[in-house]
């Protein structure tokens, strides 16, 4: 005797339990409320100039958040993300004299190497991911500092970078296209490939994943390597935006990226969440960020507010997680 199986056309990879559904709908609601509020706060808000500005501000963060989402779903976190970003940007800038292809390839390679270091220590050696990435953060930052000697470096010396940074196609900034492409590509990678499914399994329950024949150490290592690659992509955008690169420019990015991921609904405890959720988190964050700027809130207070929001988001996530376990 079998109950009728409803045939929802929705993608099974999204794991719809009604609690999670509630959360992402709630976040969508929050986003809409924010948009309306911001409109009242400043009539500059809904101008296309401002909106594109928002996009430009958060492209780097958004791309990094994609990578971070992947790592977090595997029940980890990469605290060295901002320093990988810095290192890739430095490599890029320093090799620009050799042509943009060399520069960008080198940056990508750097990202992959950094990700592999993290991935190896965490995935294969199984050291604690918090401490490892804290340590590699220091290492990567130091390496970047050594390479630049602490100086400011001129970036954007090749045409392609100013193209990415300033130009628009069909009225929409080039980097917006890149952002969307990254989201789509990695969204598909995460939700629609076998490897992505295995990552979710590993993050949810690595014991069961092992029983199911999944090579969990490889999967986890892979998540960090991909993150490294994605951060390298973000670094290209960064060098395209800023006229000068200095190590330390992006040191607070890490915190923002984590906030975006958590806001979107990807749980830090692993196994739950997704790129599309992170997209929503990104939008909320972007609006918030921009709103605070338009309201003229000083930078330091902005950080403080973001800190509070992060804690609240984590609290909410914890609360939901407990609810999910109460059966």
């Amino acid at each position, binding site marked *: 005797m079998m109950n009728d*199986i*409803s045939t*929802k056309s929705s993608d099974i990879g999204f*794991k719809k*339990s009604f609690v999670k559904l509630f959360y992402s709908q709630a976040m969508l609601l929050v986003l809409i409320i924010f948009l309306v509020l911001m409109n009242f706060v400043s009539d500059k808000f809904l101008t296309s100039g401002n909106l594109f500005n928002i996009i430009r501000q958060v492209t780097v963060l958004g791309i990094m958040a994609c990578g971070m989402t992947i790592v977090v779903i595997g029940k980890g976190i990469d605290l060295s993300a901002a320093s990988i970003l810095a290192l890739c940007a430095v490599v890029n800038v320093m090799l620009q004299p050799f042509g943009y292809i060399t520069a960008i390839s080198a940056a990508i390679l750097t990202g992959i190497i950094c990700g592999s270091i993290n991935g190896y220590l965490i995935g294969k050696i199984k050291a604690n991911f918090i401490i490892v990435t804290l340590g590699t953060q220091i290492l990567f930052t130091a390496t970047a500092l050594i390479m630049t000697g602490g100086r400011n470096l001129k970036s954007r010396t090749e045409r392609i970078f100013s193209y990415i940074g300033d130009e628009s196609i069909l009225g929409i900034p080039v980097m917006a296209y890149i952002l969307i492409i990254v989201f789509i590509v990695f969204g598909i990678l995460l939700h629609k490939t076998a490897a992505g*499914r295995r990552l*979710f399994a590993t993050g949810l329950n690595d*014991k069961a994943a092992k029983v199911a*024949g999944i090579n969990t150490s490889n999967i986890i290592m892979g998540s960090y390597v991909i993150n490294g690659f994605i951060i390298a992509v973000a670094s290209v955008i960064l060098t395209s935006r800023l006229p000068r690169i200095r190590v330390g420019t992006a040191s607070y990015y890490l915190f923002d990226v984590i906030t975006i991921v958590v806001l979107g609904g990807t749980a830090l405890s692993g196994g739950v969440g997704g790129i599309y959720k992170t997209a929503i988190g990104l939008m909320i964050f972007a609006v918030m960020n921009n709103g605070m700027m338009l309201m003229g809130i000083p930078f330091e207070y902005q950080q403080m507010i973001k800190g509070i929001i992060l804690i609240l988001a984590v609290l909410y996530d914890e609360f939901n997680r407990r609810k999910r376990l109460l*059966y």
Partner: protein
Amino acid sequence: MANNNEYLLEMSNISKEFPGVKALDNVTFNLKEREVFAIVGENGAGKSTLIKILSGSYGNDFDGEIKISGEKINIQGPKHAIELGISTIYQETSLVQDITVAENIFLGRQPTNKFGKINWEQIFKYSEKLLKDLSINLTPHVLVNSLSTAQQQLVEIVKAFSVKSKIIIMDEPTSSITEEDTENLFNIIRRIVSGGTSIIYISHRIKEIFMIADKVTVLRDGKTVKTMEVSETDEADIVKYMVGRELGDLYGEKSYKASQKIIFEAKNLTRKGKFKDVSFTLREGEILGLSGLVGAGRSEIVRSIFGLDRLDSGDLFLYGQKVSIKSSADGISNGFGFVSEDRRTESIIQGFSVAANITILLLKKILSRIGLISSKREKDLAKRHVKEFSIKTPSLEQLVMNLSGGNQQKVALARCLSTNPKILILDEPTKGIDVGAKKEIHTLVKNLANKGVSVIMISSELPEIIGMCHRVAVIREGILVNTFNKEELSEEKLLSAAVGNA
């Protein structure tokens, strides 16, 4: 104060139900002062539930009454139980490893002077005295992490004794210690008992009961079968009471025989500390049972075969060819399927949907041409399995954590069978499942065997293993002691072999 009541502890009409199963049914248990009372019973007879109730783990959540020295008590929690004078020593140690023996004994109740300064001299002096009184050969100054399991156990006893416990419950105390240590343990027990404490002693080793206990109660299916003076009975008697039930016709006729073709052979499988020199063969379409006590090593054996845990030495042969299985992926690709004993955490992924769980082993099959997961194929595959296994779920996207235990097990089975394994390993497949679902799973397994799939089944339910299997191997303390054919099977034989009488 005179104790009018002759009993130190009276547990009357204790019942406890879990969803689908009645763990204890009107159990009565009375303990006198200075008594060593043994409780025996098969796996699932209700012993651990009884201990948990007495040690406060279930609080008020049971029916019945408990009295200590004639007064009704209401155990609110584990801490409260200790305050009431009931200490429990489990198989897993509960000492703080990195501090001294003495400090563990006085954990949380260090003597201080009026300024709050801890009086270490007193702590060490008292500990030394306690150890000496009980003739335990340990110095209070050593760190607990340098002691053997047996010695740590003794420290727990001293701890329980020092908080003036009237009742000390010991759960399988000898399962991880040597014979010599056991002898030592018994001497200490005798000393404690003469000092006024009573002991409730749970063990599978029936021989030991005759060495240390005064009285024994046999539990079976949650009921008290018989309570006797140890002096008035013998081992065979006890085993008889442990199993004596009508087998009933839960399993129906097996109208088929397994073929004679041997498809799998295990030779001299050894894993240090877990099992040694285990060898057996498996035929096509055969259901081979692995019987034995909990902790005998059955799960460890099959997990090593499947590749989840390592194998120190020994060979595996499939269809006569030697195979090397170093990971679960190897196990799966060699045609094994595995359903773990710990179904909830190991065989299914709670946070995944039914469909995702079923298809996780077959991700290659649900890919579209470009290599991406096709939700149509995923749904189709899942639907097929849900139908085949009669899994009750409101939808394919339902998270498995919301299904009942029986249906979760079916999902685990469906997933495991999705790769069409030639050899299915089932570790306690029907543990904690309601009768209806149990029957379904049994029918399923038998049908599979009929179709030529071989099954290795671990079960602690003797009727189940007798009803389902063509042959049963008994594992005792890591060694395969005997193998019985269907015709020779009886619960008594199995249990005797498992506990070591045969």
